[in-house]
């Protein structure tokens, strides 16, 4: 039964999407488009609703654990939301193959940076965006400062644009922007990205809903499954060592980059 299959798929997407702060669109869009034969815009619209559900559910847990940096999240989401409006329109109006190829290259560069271990954290809490949270795996409070705020803001405009274009929450870009570039610990970056992806996806989803691309026969079971999966993802993120999360994130990034190259080259989706 299609309903049950979509729910099961969404549980997995919600679990990993919330655990890594990527929202689950990375999984939902290709499976819905290729596996279930949905038109790409319907798959993207369904994914956007899923990303919002992931964000809402994950926030309940991450905020309670103090891992979400709300100020940083809202600052960067301002950039990505502006980019998403442009991206949502772009998806409706134009072909984005060139942009896909360019971002695939950026993602592969990010994987290389993360693999090198350049996510060194500024341990001193400093500036208005600095924060702290308790990490259960390390058994202590992690304090940090935020650096390169302007560059992170600029890059978030680009991430929001691609999120609107491809129906992903933008977390694949948000997390490395915060952790690799701005010096935010990976767990705080994941939690904050979970805040950002909901806002970013909401701006795009409103456009898709208004234009009739949201199909309840897919969006509803997907949402219900996502909510189940995303209720467990943050617990895993909090309890797993940061190194394990980093490796998992690199795998997702590399896979996503390959997918974008395939799409840009062959237009399979």
């Amino acid at each position, binding site marked *: 039964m299609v309903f049950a299959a979509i729910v099961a798929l969404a549980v997995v997407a919600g679990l990993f999407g919330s655990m890594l702060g990527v929202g689950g669109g990375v999984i939902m869009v290709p499976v819905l488009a290729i596996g279930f034969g949905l038109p790409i815009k319907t798959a993207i619209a369904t994914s956007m609703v899923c990303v919002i559900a992931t964000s809402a559910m994950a926030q309940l847990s991450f905020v309670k654990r103090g891992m979400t940096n709300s100020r940083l999240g809202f600052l960067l989401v301002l950039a990505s939301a502006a980019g998403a409006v442009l991206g*949502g329109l772009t998806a409706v109006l134009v072909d984005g193959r060139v942009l896909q190829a360019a971002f695939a290259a950026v993602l592969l560069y990010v994987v290389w940076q993360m693999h090198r271990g350049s996510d060194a954290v500024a341990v001193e809490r400093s500036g208005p965006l600095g924060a702290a949270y308790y990490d259960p795996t390390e058994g202590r409070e992690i304090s940090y400062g935020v650096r390169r705020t302007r560059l992170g803001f600029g890059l978030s405009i680009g991430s929001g644009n691609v999120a609107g274009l491809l129906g992903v929450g933008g977390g694949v870009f948000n997390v490395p922007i915060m952790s690799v570039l701005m010096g935010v610990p990976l767990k705080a970056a994941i939690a904050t990205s979970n805040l950002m992806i909901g806002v970013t996806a909401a701006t795009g989803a409103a456009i898709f809903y208004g234009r009739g691309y949201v199909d309840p026969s897919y969006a509803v079971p997907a949402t219900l499954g996502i909510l189940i999966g995303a209720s467990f993802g943050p617990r895993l993120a909090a309890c797993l060592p940061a190194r394990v999360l980093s490796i998992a994130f690199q795998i997702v990034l590399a896979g996503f980059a390959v997918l974008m190259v395939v799409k840009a080259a062959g237009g399979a989706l």
Partner: protein
Amino acid sequence: MRAPDPAGLPAPPPDVAQTLVERLVERLLLAAIGVGVTLMLLGVALGIAAGDGLPDAVLPVSGLPQALTSWEPAAYLSLGLIMLMATPFVRVAGSLVVFALAHDRRYVLVTAAVLAVMCLSVLLGQV
């Protein structure tokens, strides 16, 4: 002792505002998710009861009141999805209020700008 701000009130430390944001957000998100899920499950039940399965198109917002009173499954599914899609708006609006109460002008402006961009996207979707 902290220096009073121009309004004569001591400026609260950032963590106080952050905590308020978090508590408010938690309750609002939980309520929105709960209502949204309930509506969607009701829509699924109505679709199964009618024997037609789930509809493949959402209803426009303007058509929802009449469709809800007619117990159309699409109306409840659409409203449930809208409730969920509204959670980020609630999140941002709630934070805007809390930042304003905390006299955190910079983040009042930031969250107001985020809300403005989101509202713009809704308007674009209606075009």
